[in-house]
């Protein structure tokens, strides 16, 4: 089976789809997986042996072709058409678009395939998702939504890989290993830093980095601190090192070098970068500093037992908090991390990433004493999972087994003495969701009583969209209520 995976965004977005590529290869022994990305992202090919062929589009060149008067008007059009026609000649059985952008949707529409997944525009310009998971992604793109799945989970579930674990494996290449060897690191502890992100607003201030490395070096004098960066960051990294006042090794590497280094380091402290996502495949523990418009709920570090630190009031995490958490993480001391989380809870949220057996990622706030939010989130996500999987697979989801799995999950996450409020909270949730179900039923009833517009196509489309949204919401609320009841029943039996 020939599969084309489209990802026409940036490097980090592509890395987040690695579990899908590896998962498809593992699940379908006969799969020949190709990728279509923008040109710089093609560097990943050497580390992803499950990808047979890597097609690239040169975004900059296509843009340049349209903007310059000395390039033929049709040059970008002709180049894009010839490239996509060459891809069409491969006759893919399945095209999966893992990018929710207009550009990728038009490209996906032009490409021919036996089957499809992901946003695609047809010749009328209408969007098709081919999986409720992608529609969910589209509808919840707004940053204000209460809770969302991690993008990697959405992609995995949409491709039928939700229940299997996420395989982030990327191959360390000889070139990458040689780059790490050239750093001449000794046997001891290695602390890797990624100082810069793609956006100044997401960077931790350099003054904070300086204080942080000084504190770490004072506490762990033998540790080797390595500053990772791409060649275009070289000058800034060297300037930082010159002013830091402690020994820092610059690691200006290729992506292959970065992956190899992340297998050598004990910890990576980073902002919201593609290196963070690459670290999912390495052995280094990760401390992510989520600053500015970084959205760790959707794109945070996925690997279990990593830390995400986000300032409470739109600021940046303090040096004390980052130092304390990093140090405790290096020591593998979760009690100490919880103490740091409690001590700094007014200024920073410290989240622990977990891969739940329910088939999704969850970042647990370590400073929260009450587990109400945890219960709400897990119930919400499991209910969404049932709703979204049911529509495509047309299978009867077992609320009983989901309830048992959810109970097991909650018991593992919630200490014994904090159990009683859970039941009370489930009562509250049942009541709340019951009320919401009634409200949506009423709205749906009212809408159906209204006559659907018959002439104006735009009005008909709006009417139909509203109807689908309400039906979907109603279905989801029903699933959630059933799940809460099942969980309550399981919970009580156990008590």
């Amino acid at each position, binding site marked *: 089976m020939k599969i084309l995976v489209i990802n026409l965004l940036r490097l980090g977005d592509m890395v987040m789809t690695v579990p899908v590529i590896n998962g498809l290869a593992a699940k379908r022994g006969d799969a020949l997986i190709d990728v279509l990305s923008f040109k710089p992202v093609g560097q990943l090919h050497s580390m992803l042996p499950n990808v047979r062929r890597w097609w690239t589009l*040169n975004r900059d060149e296509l843009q340049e*072709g349209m903007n310059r008067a000395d*390039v033929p008007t049709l040059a*970008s*059009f002709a180049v*894009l058409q*010839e*490239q996509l026609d060459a891809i069409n000649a491969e006759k893919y059985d399945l095209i999966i678009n893992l990018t929710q952008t207009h550009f990728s949707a*038009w490209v996906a529409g032009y490409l021919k395939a036996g089957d499809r997944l992901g946003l695609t525009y047809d*010749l009328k310009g209408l969007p098709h998702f081919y999986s409720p998971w992608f529609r969910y992604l589209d509808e919840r793109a707004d940053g204000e939504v209460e809770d969302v799945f991690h993008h990697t989970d959405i992609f995995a579930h949409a491709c039928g890989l939700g229940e299997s674990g996420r395989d982030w494996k990327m191959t360390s290449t000889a070139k990458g290993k040689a780059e790490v060897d050239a750093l001449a690191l000794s046997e001891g502890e290695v602390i890797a830093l990624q100082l810069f992100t793609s956006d100044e607003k997401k960077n931790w201030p350099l003054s904070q980095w300086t204080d942080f490395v000084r504190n770490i070096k004072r506490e762990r004098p033998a540790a080797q601190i390595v500053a990772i960066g791409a060649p275009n960051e070289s000058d800034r990294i060297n300037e930082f090192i010159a002013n830091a006042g402690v020994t820092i090794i610059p690691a200006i590497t290729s992506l292959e070098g970065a992956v190899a280094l992340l297998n050598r380091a004990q910890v990576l402290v980073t902002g919201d970068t593609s290196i963070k996502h690459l670290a999912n495949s390495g052995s280094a523990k990760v401390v992510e500093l989520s600053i500015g418009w970084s959205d760790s709920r959707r794109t945070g570090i996925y690997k279990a037992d990593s830390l995400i630190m986000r300032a409470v009031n739109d600021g940046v995490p303090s040096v004390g908090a980052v130092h304390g958490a990093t140090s405790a993480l290096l020591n593998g001391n979760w009690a100490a991390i919880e103490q740091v989380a409690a001590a700094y809870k007014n200024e920073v949220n410290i989240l622990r990433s977990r891969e739940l057996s329910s088939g999704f990622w969850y970042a647990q706030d370590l400073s929260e004493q009450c587990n109400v939010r945890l219960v709400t989130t897990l119930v919400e996500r499991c209910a969404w999972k049932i709703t979204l999987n049911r529509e495509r697979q047309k299978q009867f989801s077992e609320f009983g087994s989901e309830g048992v799995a959810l109970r097991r999950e909650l018991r593992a996450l919630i200490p014994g003495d904090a159990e009683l409020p859970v039941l009370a909270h489930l009562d509250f949730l049942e009541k709340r969701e019951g009320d919401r179900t009634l409200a949506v039923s009423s709205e749906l009833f009212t809408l159906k009583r209204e006559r659907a517009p018959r002439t104006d196509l735009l009005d008909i489309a709006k009417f139909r969209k509203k109807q689908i949204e309400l039906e979907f919401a109603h279905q989801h609320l029903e699933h959630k209520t059933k799940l809460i009841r099942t969980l309550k029943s399981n919970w009580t039996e156990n008590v």
Partner: protein
Amino acid sequence: MIEIIDAANGEKVIRFGGRLLASRFNPRQEAREWIDRRPEFLEKVRTVIVLGMASGHHVAELLDRTDAKILVIDTHEQILTASQGLHMFPASRVTFEHVKTARELRASMQVKKAVLGSFVVLMHPASLLIDAKVYEECRAQLLGRDWGALTWQWKLRNAPGFDAHSRIDRASDMPLTIYDLEQTELVQNSEEREKLLFKALRELVK
């Protein structure tokens, strides 16, 4: 009228009508710098159309920089002949066309074939000085930044029409852009597959 002289680095250079058609010091280096200024699409297009053969060093350099076919257009047959004598261009990669007017360019089978696929146009500056008017007309025809030239190219591709109505009343001094193409009937109202590509490209310049 044509003289062949030695440049300082030992390479041969053509002088036409008293005008040197390449650097008298290092024509190959000059050609390299000329291509460096316009590298877009060289690795992607099927044909590079070069306006002006001159001493041919830029064509020789292009051969090393692209896998595309190279079609060289020149308004003087003597220059084409003399320059080919200075280089050993493979016939499978480089072809030549002598045209005296833009009309002859439009009629050329080689040009039509090139325009059917992806191509870029490179104007050799020294040649432009010899026959500025004809070269400018040929370049405009190939760039297709006005409706007349664009329509000629689009029809050659046997593609569905952009618009049922001609655009002759449009301000002619403004070069066409993707924004104009987006407004055509093809992109706005049709269900032709080409529409999807224009829609995609438009997203890249938003």
